[in-house]
């Protein structure tokens, strides 16, 4: 039976595919995974999974026809609106002087 081995390089890191091995059952697969992916102490942890349990998805996106820019960072263009808002705030401050709130300048670049 073929088993896939995923390994965690260091504590806290994602598990990444290391390779595959052939073994009669899970007990053997565990012994072999330790050897092949741990004998130099190179893995913090291992996941061992029978290959048949893994579902491969090659074309992961569910909907790709219409533009869905609201889901992406580059779908938002703040520059123009931010400039306008700052100008408006500056104009209002001239009429109603008070401590300039730091809220807008904290926004950083658009």
């Amino acid at each position: 039976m073929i088993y896939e081995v995923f390994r965690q390089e260091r504590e806290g890191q994602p598990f990444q595919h290391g390779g595959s091995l052939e073994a009669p059952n899970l007990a053997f697969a565990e012994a072999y995974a330790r050897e092949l992916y741990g004998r130099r102490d190179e893995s913090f942890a291992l996941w061992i999974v029978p290959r048949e349990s893994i579902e491969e998805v090659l074309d992961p996106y569910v909907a790709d026809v219409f533009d869905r820019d609201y889901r992406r960072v580059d779908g938002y263009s703040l520059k123009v609106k931010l400039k306008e808002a700052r100008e408006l705030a500056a104009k209002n401050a001239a009429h109603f002087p008070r401590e300039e709130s730091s809220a807008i300048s904290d926004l950083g670049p658009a």
Partner: protein
Amino acid sequence: MNDNEFQAYVQEGGQVETGDAMPDDYRKALIKFIEMHGNSELMGVLPEREWILRAPTLQRKLALTAKVQDEVGHSQLIYRVVEDLGKPREACLDDLVAGKTKFHNVFHYPTKTWGDVAVIAWLVDAAAIISQKALLKCSYAPYARIMKKICWEESFHILHGRDCILALMTGTDEQRELVQEAVTRWWGPLMQFHGNPIAAEDDPMYRWRIKSQANEDARQQFLDGYVPQIWELGLTVPDPRLRKRDDDGVWEYSEPDWDELKHVVTGHGPKTEERLGFRRWSREETAWVRNAVLPQAA
């Protein structure tokens, strides 16, 4: 994607995974190339394993066992890739012991002394690593991925080799002579190791980006890295023509014996029959284990 589009795709850096559509010729070439690599790692164990038993210190015994173990581990990784491409491991091993498939020239030669053990770990492994590093860019991604682990583990072998050599070279006259004698004997096979120069345009292995380094480039890289190391220890190489040109840095050398290379890799090396026979024997004796324990092998 038709064959031309596929070729353009891989030449531009496109990667191929196991389940992807690929031209039949690409798949066949991959299997042949990768299988030969697996065969070489496995056959490479045989010249070295006897010296594990004879290692002169506990440290060397441990280091050599670990090195050979790595090589077996590499063949495991490699044959898994071949199996996923469609040729089962058992079929690969059957073909190997029947003499139907090839393995690298260096593993057809005898190891006569502890000097050989040191020289193999120092120079033969170095020659192999140069080729292996070039394979990190193979268009077939599963193979490129295992090459990463292989190259990492091979780096320990180089250190072990160097350590053994330096211990011998700083030892007695007899020990230094062991090294020189081994270098002299291994020089021919080493120079043949990377293969005769082939024009990249004529070679499908390059067009498909399975290989990405020309044979001659690999050999030049080897000479550049290791001849200085050999000479600085006071060792000589049995080639009076060997020199590095001042103007372009290219190494000149006597033409390697390409007939010998062909003769050896087609199964006529000094130790080929004996080693294949040994493999055949141990496989037969342990067939019952595979049948009892690995259902696919039955």
